[in-house]
């Protein structure tokens, strides 16, 4: 995600979630999201198979 794509993503996502954002805030949020995108890209390098489930908290009933 480059700077322009990140800003566009932030603006459309905020609108979808009903979060008001002025231009200055959107630019700052986009900068944060770009940094996280680098980490997300790194994390995509983790080898996972289809049966690798998410870490859990949910339990239907303590036993």
């Amino acid at each position: 995600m480059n700077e322009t794509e990140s800003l566009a993503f932030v603006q459309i996502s905020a609108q979808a979630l009903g979060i008001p954002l002025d231009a200055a805030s959107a630019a700052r949020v986009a900068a944060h999201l770009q940094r996280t995108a680098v980490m997300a890209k790194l994390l995509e390098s983790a080898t996972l198979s289809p049966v690798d489930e998410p870490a859990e908290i949910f339990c239907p009933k303590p036993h």
Partner: protein
Amino acid sequence: MNPLKYFVPSRIDMDTQEHTTEQLAQGIAVGDFSAHEVTTAAIARIEATNLQVNAFTTPCFERALQEAQVIDQRRARGEVLPPLAGVPYAVKNLFDIEGVVTLAGSTINQSNLPATSDAFLVKQMHDAGAVLLGGLNMDEYAYGFTTENTHYGPSHNPHDLTRIAGGSSGGSGAAVAARQVSLALGSDTNGSIRVPASLCGVWGLKPTFGRLSRRGSYPFVHSIDHLGPFADSLTGLALAYDALQNVDPLDPACHAKRVEPVSKALEQGLQGLRVGVLDGYFHDNATSPARQAVHDAAHALGLTTQVTWPDASLARAAAFIVTASEGGQLHMDHLRTRAQDMEPLSVDRFMAGALQPAAWYVQAQRFRRRYREKVNALFEHWDVLLAPATPVTATPIGTEWLDLNGQRLPSRAAMGLLTQPISFAGCPVLVAPMWPEGAAAMPIGVQLISAPWREEAAFRVAHILARSGAAYINKVRF
């Protein structure tokens, strides 16, 4: 004007820097001093130093005096006192205190109703006889490593008031370091106990994920939040940790099946423990003082073996993503309607987290399970592993960027580089306060990391460090 001005005892002859947790408990138990004397000394210390330190936001002195009175009455009746009877403590202001609004570092929460009961861990401390002095400063909603809280002011490092106390439990670290209280409670999602313990030079413990009940505390990231104690001595840390333990079926993330005390295990020594030093990521992301602290600890323990932690960079990335996503979602309503009232230093990060693609979050949670397996496999060969708690010593308040071995990193996020991979695996970590040469008389902590549910192993190693004089608390100058 001192906003905490409340009570000045007519005669103060107790220097709070002269007595550790266990010395106070023992002294009260045998009648060397009363709980009232100890409590009034703590109140006087808080009133004399809080303008400098800014640790306390919510004093509860009246309650403290009442609790102390009960302890003194019990002793007068000849009762055997519980282990922390009369010991002064305080809690990060995300813990519920009956009759007090739980701020969680925000001004938004000021309009909430006061808590109707104490948090689970506050009740545990009460049952152990400890005396609650109040609530402590923190980063708003726990999203930060510096406690530069814009609403309530920054907490100042008691060893250099121009520097940060660390965060997000910065008030907890500062209050213990300044010897305003002997013990404090904090929370740790990505390092929020370990970072202030490191920067303030006090003992700290992030237990195994799921060990201590979180009921009655304001959450940040449900799938990573931990609670734990700070202390002015290792024995005090063990006493507090033992007091905090209990099973709690009403907290869905409390996995503890039994109480497993550590106080009696402290002196068992290193026999049978396999202890190593983490290299790679934990060396590369540390500056010279942090490396020196680990070197000093390894020397005191007679360690030479280097060990590589699996997937540390990936784990840090995954922890970052899970934190942003869950934290952002938790505050969605605030972001929609009260963003202008939120902490300016973190509101944009909350916002970015709320907008993150779901695919990033799910990848991070799927990675976490695989990561856990790798970490647990590592601990089949090791019992305790050492690493620095923070890359650097405390930075000046307001620092924006950190130069870390040639990398220019955002200071407020980088302070958690060395703690995030560990908490993401849920491992218990005890932070030992070290004072390496070349750190300009500032502290830096060493993480003693053990396998899940093996807190006692970390305590045994810490005991060697304390006994050898390698790890200790330093007095402050005021």
